[in-house]
């Protein structure tokens, strides 16, 4: 049985010393996933709110589709984005394959359904409660959506954080469309996979610690958001 205590100690040193390679990888991870979540928010919040408020034929099917897209397998999304962005693909001219841009697109595709579906559920519940009151104010559809999005703010932040958690921990999609190129498209998850296979366990474990720390922080923020919402009866 191998003893990993040496590697564990080295990993800890890498993190504590803010190793530049490690920081570069962590930095790119955060940038890519944050951008993906921003895009997912810009698309998912209005889309979810629209589905919650609008009534049109096929809406039920759209909701079911959206809910099932929440569980999209990342490798399938990676493959689809690869096909779109490859030279032979429809978006090949953009020359985005193996760039952080491609990774942002892939993660945004993964996160958008999560944000949209959770938004739809939250806003629809709240709409049932507010509809008659807002009608007494003569509120049109846009003002209604704006009101509901503001009042659902805590739940929606929760949805965005959940999306961020999924994006930053995901490996299948970014490795296909990013290619895990040193100094260009290496993020935490892909680097962990690579360094582990190379036997460089210190770097892999260091990045693993950072990833876990991020996950723990996200959950801590989620919990404090939830208790803030409950304390103000805003949940």
């Amino acid at each position, binding site marked *: 049985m191998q003893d990993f205590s040496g590697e564990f100690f080295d990993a800890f040193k890498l993190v504590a010393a803010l190793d530049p390679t490690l920081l570069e990888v962590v930095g790119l991870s955060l940038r890519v996933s944050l951008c993906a979540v921003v895009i997912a928010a810009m698309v998912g919040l209005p889309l979810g709110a629209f589905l919650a408020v609008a009534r049109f034929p096929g809406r039920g099917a759209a909701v079911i589709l959206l809910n099932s897209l929440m569980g999209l397998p990342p490798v399938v999304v990676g493959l689809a984005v690869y096909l779109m962005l490859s030279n032979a693909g429809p978006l090949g001219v953009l020359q985005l394959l193996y760039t952080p841009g491609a990774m942002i697109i892939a993660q945004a595709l993964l996160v958008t359904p999560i944000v949209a579906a959770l938004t739809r559920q939250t806003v629809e519940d709240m709409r049932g409660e507010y509809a008659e009151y807002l*009608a007494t*104010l003569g509120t049109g559809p846009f003002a209604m959506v704006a009101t509901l999005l503001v009042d659902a703010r805590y739940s929606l932040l929760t949805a965005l954080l959940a999306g961020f958690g999924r994006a930053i921990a995901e490996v299948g999609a970014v490795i296909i469309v990013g290619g895990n190129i040193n100094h260009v498209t290496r993020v935490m998850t892909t680097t962990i996979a690579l360094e582990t296979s190379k036997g460089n366990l210190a770097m892999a474990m260091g990045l693993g610690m950072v990833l876990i720390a991020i996950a723990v922080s996200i959950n801590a923020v989620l919990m404090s958001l939830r208790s803030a919402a409950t304390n103000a009866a805003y949940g």
Partner: protein
Amino acid sequence: MLDRPRSPQEPANVVAPRPVPAERVPAHALPSDPVLPLSARGLVFARAGRRLIDDIDFTLEGAGITLIMGHNGAGKSLLLRLLAGLVEPDAGTVTWNGRAPDRARATRVGFVFQKPVLLRRSALGNVVHALKCAGVKRAERKLRAHEALQRARLAPLAGVPARLMSGGEQQRLALARALALRPRVLMLDEPTASLDPTSVAHIEALALEAVRAGTRILFVGHDLAQARRLADEVVFMHSGRIAERTPAATFFDNPQSPLAARFLAGDLLLDEDRKLKREEETTP
């Protein structure tokens, strides 16, 4: 022109016109009023084969407080929501000064629900939001919201999350929020049900103050003592119909319909009591 919401600077609580029988004044002769006369013709709302609102004709004009009374399930809340344009009738029409209710005039008719609907914001935020929806300029919203809270004696609670307030405070906030828009007509659906006496007194005082400022009030209630304190006239409903409409002075001592007499005597009138309803219809 008429469709435009009143500008915020304009004093909204114009002095109510003297009561004039609607038939003698065509709607277009009162162009200044955004809502009155508020009128229902042949109103029907039916569900599952039951006429919950059964062919109601009703006109609201003049000034003061009209109290709608009747047993649970008589259709009081439903009538109020139909008149406010919140629910579409299955037959008949509702008109606000001659035209169907529209979004542009929605804020001219205030509504306070039995269970207040408060946004997940502070007390002040609730009023500011309503003012924004009514088209009040940003610069004026805070000031007017604070005024409204002041009048409802909620000023110290301005920053408190509305949903953390007590039941009485929540209902006062809902009323203050409605009054901040200076509605022409205010509809109150049992606003004091299950409130403590102090809160009830507060709410009644606010309603009377609004009437003095020229707001026409439709008040659903079932407390006789309260009705005596507030009502200028009483509408008595039973089984989706208006059994009688009488000035308050005569209603309590000398109701015109046997149904209302039994109600005042504390009799339990069941909604299924259709035999009595038919008797009443046949005796003019």
